């Protein structure tokens, strides 16, 4: 006996409620799988922010704070590292490269980062990917700047344009380094990391810009000319270390953390990223719980519709019994109906989600820096959908059992 056909025809005959039920399940599927997709993609894009770096060193503070300002350009350092300490540590044996980072200035809302030329060959993100320039070249002259792809895109900059850097990190700063404009020498390829939102200049450039400044105030008196000034920085904000061999990393971390010259902190970027993700996972859990409740609501809706229709279907059940349907057939019919609704809801939801991602991929990436891959459903998504399907089946048991009880009481003759 082909119950699916009967179930299908019966649903078609009640198509308005069936469509609404499918739509509500689809919405819950979109939410459930969408939250999971965003979570997975956010986590991987987060974990891909920096790679190939063994240690991040900054003034002693918290590891998450250090990670935030050195990698994500969020917040600011409480203290700097003296140039001497940086040099001492950078000379240690086993260190392959170091990248100094000097922060504190900005350009129209984008952070300016002073660094060395080593940044371009050694800084890595994603799966150990190096930075690439889409046009121009790394900074060479004192007032050269290399900008991230997003800076270039949103400010419509190209190689050769002039950039005036503001003091401090507010976009509407009144103290601008107007007398010392930078020239864009290169634009970096899109990375999906905070690099895209950074203006890179040389450490000397940062120093040069600040000649004749004292702290946050411009000196009134006519000061030195650039040629007179010593452009070697006195301090930097943080630096990244790449090692010859990972075995050294613990030893070096201890050395830095116990460094006698000044209080420093060295962190493993992977561990710090993980710690930070754990902080953010509260929000992710909350979203997951909300979507689970939406799923429950949609299944409850389906149950309500199914139970409400049951009384009108007593006659139908009696007819089916009279032509030879067993109780199992009747229950199978009702379970098949709820399963069909659930499957249709899942398929519709997945279709909406995937086409939605397909359509909004570039918009999400442009606005939130998050690239959501379409890809095949993950194991976890499959598990979620399977649980939903199983729940749909279990929900279907309730009207099925009620129909069984009704049919026991009615026999072949419903009293109409």
């Amino acid at each position: 006996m082909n119950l699916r056909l009967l179930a299908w025809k019966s649903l078609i005959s009640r198509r308005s409620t069936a469509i609404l039920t499918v739509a509500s399940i689809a919405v819950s599927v979109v939410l459930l799988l969408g939250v999971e997709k965003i979570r997975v993609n956010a986590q991987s894009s987060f974990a891909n922010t920096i790679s190939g770096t063994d240690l991040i060193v900054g003034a002693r503070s918290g590891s998450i704070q250090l990670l935030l300002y050195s990698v994500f350009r969020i917040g600011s350092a409480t203290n700097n590292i003296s140039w001497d300490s940086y040099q001492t540590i950078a000379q240690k044996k086993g260190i392959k490269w170091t990248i100094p980072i000097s922060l504190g200035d900005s350009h129209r809302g984008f952070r300016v980062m002073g660094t060395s030329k080593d940044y371009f060959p050694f800084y890595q993100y994603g799966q150990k990917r190096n930075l690439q320039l889409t046009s121009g070249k790394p900074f060479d002259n004192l007032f050269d700047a290399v900008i991230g792809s997003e800076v270039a895109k949103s400010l419509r900059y190209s190689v050769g344009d002039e950039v005036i850097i503001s003091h401090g990190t507010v976009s509407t700063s009144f103290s601008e380094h107007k007398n010392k404009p930078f020239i864009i020498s290169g634009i970096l390829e899109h990375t999906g990391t905070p690099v895209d939102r950074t203006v890179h200049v040389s450490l000397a450039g940062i120093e040069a810009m600040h000649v004749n400044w004292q702290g946050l105030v411009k000196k009134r008196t006519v000061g030195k000319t650039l040629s007179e000034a010593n452009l070697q920085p006195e301090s930097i904000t943080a630096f990244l270390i790449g090692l010859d061999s990972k075995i050294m990393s613990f030893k070096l971390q201890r050395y830095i953390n116990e460094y006698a010259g000044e209080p420093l902190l060295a962190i493993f970027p992977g561990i710090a990223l993980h710690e930070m993700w754990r902080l953010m996972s509260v929000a992710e859990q909350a979203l997951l719980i909300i979507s689970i409740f939406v799923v429950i609501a949609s299944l409850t809706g389906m149950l309500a519709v199914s139970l409400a229709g049951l009384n009108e279907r007593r006659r139908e059940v009696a007819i089916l019994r009279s032509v030879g349907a067993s109780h199992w057939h009747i229950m199978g019919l009702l379970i098949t109906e709820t399963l069909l609704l659930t499957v249709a809801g899942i398929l519709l939801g997945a279709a909406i989600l995937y086409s939605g991602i397909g359509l909004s991929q570039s918009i999400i990436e442009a606005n939130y820096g998050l690239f959501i891959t379409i890809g095949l459903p993950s194991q976890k998504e499959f598990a979620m959908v399977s649980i939903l399907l199983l729940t749909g089946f279990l929900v279907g048991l309730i009207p099925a059992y009620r129909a069984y009880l009704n049919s026991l009481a009615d026999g072949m003759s419903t009293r109409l």
Partner: protein
Amino acid sequence: MVESTLIRLDNVEFCWHANAKPSIRSGKLCIDRHEHVFIQGTSGSGKSTLLNIIGGIVTPQKGQVNVVGKDFTQLKEIERDRVRADHIGFIFQQFNLIPYLSILENVTLPCRFSGVRAKNATERSGSVNNEAVYLLNRLYSKSKFGFDRKTSELSVGQQQRVAAARALIGQPQLIIADEPTSSLDYDSRQAFMDLLFDEVNTSGSTLLFVSHDPTQQHRFDRVVEMSTINTRGSADL
């Protein structure tokens, strides 16, 4: 060897609820193969209960029920469902049809539940659908409409003919008609009875016709008063 008795009830007692009075308490009832029997009874006389017992929907708490050679009191529910699917066709007073199926799908419905009836239908007409069309054409000699239409567009008389075609498809041994004509006017009633008898005679099925309306009695081999089957008395429901 084919037994000549198709239905035999012996001292059957059945109540719908555990503590209720029995709905039926029968003496002996025997119906032979190919017999056309009219059971006359008013509503509340236990007719529905009797049909549910013969159809194997319920089993009596006491007594013997034997239908198409099967002892229903010894069979499991699913086995009784099987017997009903294979050997019994029902026509009820009204609302016989599944509203979401077409005329043709309603008629072929028993063949979805019974391989035996599907086989019989195929043997006779080549396919289940052909047999359904054949039966419908016989019952609707003057009809011009397609059988893929929804049953909701049919008049009550037309619906009863579809129900009869459904009961007859696959030549079940027993046709049970429960007040099939009571919602029809006089002319439709005569036409319906003519068709029903034609078909039952052609297929050689046993006909068990239950009604309170004595005007049709003359067509039958035998008339049984419900009160003689159900000795419980018809005063209480």
